[in-house]
């Protein structure tokens, strides 16, 4: 298989990227695992119960789980791993647990809401009901690690991981190849493959050429090569496509003039033809966005929530807001991070906005600089793609638009709407169902109407998979070439 970058770490507490996650998920297990249909199922936990007030989750653990070092897993390991990860790079995975915030900020010695009832039982008390909690339990940051190995290895645990996963690390030559071998003692029985080799290939074309040369069994196909692959009779049959839970869009910082005026933001939304964006930036191989939420996300509204392409209306709104181009007016700036698709999008955007009288200045930055600029509110108009961490509308709408998340926590638009906050708070605490979905739909509608975010297209994963590769799940949380699905199920029919 191929990875598009060398994983920065194999420590679940420190991993924040899809590349690391693709490997971490093979080395470690979580209490709960999502199947291809995104339904939570048992993993390290053989079962669980939820209290009537939906605040207490009691997990009954399997007693036959061994770490790669041979030791049996106990509930205390889960508590240790979660507390360790809560002070890692993704503390938000645990912040719904009672007392977690105090622990994360160093004001408590442990997470009060985590209780080891006995070696096989973990009780988790939430600060408030939170419908997607099981998704967080299935997230790779919540993977279980053995305390003694973490303490023995220190920082080296990131490069010498010890988990309970179906595979263990065999060798890793940085920026070249990472090889996993089957862990014979896995609690579900040994994986079907003896080993999995991840080739680290940063260039799209190099990955494609390796596949053509027969050196890869699986690889991703970026949008820029989708037409090439479709036209190639030898490759066409191996191409698989599926929806990834992600949306590419444009964001405004609503505290930055002239984007403080909703009419200016709406004008830009009406000036952009999302179909043309798909045709140009995605080479026609994509799906124009119908809203912020990808259609494949459970609970996403059936009706489209997007301001239509209407340049005439855009001109009128710009005139009303006083943002028409002309002498003496400042040029408006759009910030984006480096990358060919981002560059193409920026140029198309510049052309489309010129049609309605906006003179857009393009500013390209590298990723680190771009993040700082966006977090600190030093840009008014910028690009943002979002891929779901877990399949729930909360992960899009609450994270990206709730006023308590202003800044680096997700709401970089600095959008503060009491009514949207209320709808989101209510929905987040509700049990899944039509009423919850309706709240999210209302919130999404309002956010789109306020033109805080302009959805452009939903992300699509494309991969070349040889026909003898069996049972490679295409999780909507994956983004090819990185697969987050469990490779223990995969086998080769050759």
């Amino acid at each position, binding site marked *: 298989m191929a990875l598009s*970058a*060398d994983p*920065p*770490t194999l420590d679940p507490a420190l991993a*924040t*990227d899809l590349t690391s996650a693709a490997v971490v998920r093979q080395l470690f297990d979580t209490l709960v695992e999502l199947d291809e249909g995104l339904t939570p199922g048992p993993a390290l936990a053989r079962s669980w119960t939820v209290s009537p007030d939906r605040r207490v989750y009691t997990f009954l653990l399997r007693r036959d789980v061994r770490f790669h070092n041979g030791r049996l897993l106990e509930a205390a390991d889960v508590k240790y791993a979660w507390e360790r990860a809560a*002070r*890692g*790079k*993704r*503390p*938000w995975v645990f*912040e719904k647990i009672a007392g977690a915030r105090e622990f*994360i*900020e*160093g004001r408590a010695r442990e997470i009060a809401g985590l209780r080891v009832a006995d070696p096989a039982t973990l009780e988790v008390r939430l600060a408030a009901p939170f419908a997607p909690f099981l998704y967080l339990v299935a997230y790779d940051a919540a993977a279980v690690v053995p305390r003694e190995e973490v303490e023995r290895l220190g*920082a*080296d645990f*990131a*490069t010498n991981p010890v988990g309970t996963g179906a595979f263990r690390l065999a060798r890793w*030559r*940085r*920026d*070249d*190849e990472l090889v996993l071998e089957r862990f014979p003692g896995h609690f579900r029985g040994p994986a079907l493959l003896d080993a999995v080799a991840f*080739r*680290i*290939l*940063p*260039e799209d*074309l*190099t990955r494609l*050429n*390796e596949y*053509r*040369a027969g*050196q890869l069994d699986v690889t991703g196909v970026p949008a820029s090569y989708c037409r090439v692959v479709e036209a190639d009779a030898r490759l066409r049959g191996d191409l698989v496509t599926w929806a990834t839970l992600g949306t590419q869009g444009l964001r405004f910082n609503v505290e930055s003039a002239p984007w403080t005026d909703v009419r200016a933001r709406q004008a830009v939304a009406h000036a952009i033809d999302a179909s043309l964006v798909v045709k140009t930036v995605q080479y026609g191989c994509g799906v124009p966005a119908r809203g912020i939420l990808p259609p494949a996300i459970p609970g996403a509204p059936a009706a489209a929530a997007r301001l239509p392409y209407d340049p005439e209306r855009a001109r009128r709104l710009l005139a009303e807001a006083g943002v028409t181009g002309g002498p003496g007016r400042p040029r408006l700036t759009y910030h984006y991070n480096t990358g060919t698709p981002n560059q193409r999008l920026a140029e198309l955007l510049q052309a489309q906005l010129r049609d309605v009288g906006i003179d857009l200045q393009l500013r390209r*930055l*590298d*990723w*680190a*600089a*771009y*993040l*700082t*600029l966006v*977090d600190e509110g030093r840009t008014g108009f910028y690009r*943002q793609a*979002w891929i779901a*961490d877990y399949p729930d509308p909360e992960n899009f709408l609450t*994270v990206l638009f709730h006023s308590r998340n202003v*800044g*680096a*926590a*997700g709401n970089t638009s600095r959008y503060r709407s009491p009514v949207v906050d209320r709808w989101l708070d209510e929905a987040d605490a509700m049990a899944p169902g039509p009423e919850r979905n309706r709240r999210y739909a209302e919130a999404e509608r309002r956010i789109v109407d306020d033109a805080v975010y302009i959805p452009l297209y939903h992300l699509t994963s494309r991969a070349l998979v040889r026909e003898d590769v069996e049972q490679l799940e295409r999780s909507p949380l994956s983004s090819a070439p990185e697969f987050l699905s469990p490779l223990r199920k995969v086998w080769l029919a050759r």
Partner: protein
Amino acid sequence: MTGELGRILAGRVGALVPVLFGVTLLVWAMSALALGDPARASMGQRADPAAVERIRRELELDRPAPVRYVRWVGRLVRGDLGRSLRDRRPVTAVIAERLPATVRLAVAATLVSIAVGVPVGVVAAARRRSLLDHALMAGAVLGISTPVFWLGMMLSLVFAVWLGWLPVSGYGGGDWLHLILPALTLGALHTGVVARMTRASLLEVARQEFLQTARAKGLSEFTVVMKHAFRNAAIPVVTVIGLGLGNLLVGAPLTETVFAWPGLGRLLVVSVDQRDVPVAMGVVLVFALVYVLGSLLVDLVYLAVDPRTRHAAAR
């Protein structure tokens, strides 16, 4: 004579210290002034402010930039380049892991440039202003001006995908077949420079009277060119080859990316992108060291071969 050469050598080596110090100061200043926070960049799009602050403290990023620089230099004197901000491994270990791949590639590319560039230059000089000369020099210019990225992709497509003779990419555990395409790609740029310099130097020497004497003595043209002309023309060619080693390192990040070659070039690209300043500083320091050592080597060759430069340096 040996003592004189030793004094000159000591002077040159001593001059390297301020150069390397200047390089580190420049890189540090650039990284300190650049927008972007390594702690924040390591956390993905969604970051918890408390976690960012904690990681900033762990990585000592909460200290003022000049203080961090002074501490870094203090450690450098003891041979310690610090730890990677990405995975907390010692920078010396990270660099030592990648250095062999880059050295292999740079040496192979240099050999390509010598093996192809020198004969091309000699033939072009010998057939001056002929169709062959023009064709070879046009090829040299093409080699210099072809983007490494494009050339790498084309070579890979033809020799790996279509013909299936060579691997597409990767280090292949050190298998020499994996080295051929990256070395040809990286060497192409330098081959053109070596060919042009060889031709120019030979033509320069060809005007010298001692060659007329050699011909008058009845020596064959081959002997005249190879034994008399080429030896005298070799000094500028050696200069270009020595200095070219630095240029090859500059070209390495692109070649290493195209061919997924796990060397210092790719390490530099990733560390700059991730704001892993200690690793970026370490790699730049190695590149600077190679560059100045290449220059020093050229100086020494000059001193050893040409007495005039030795006397000038001694003054």
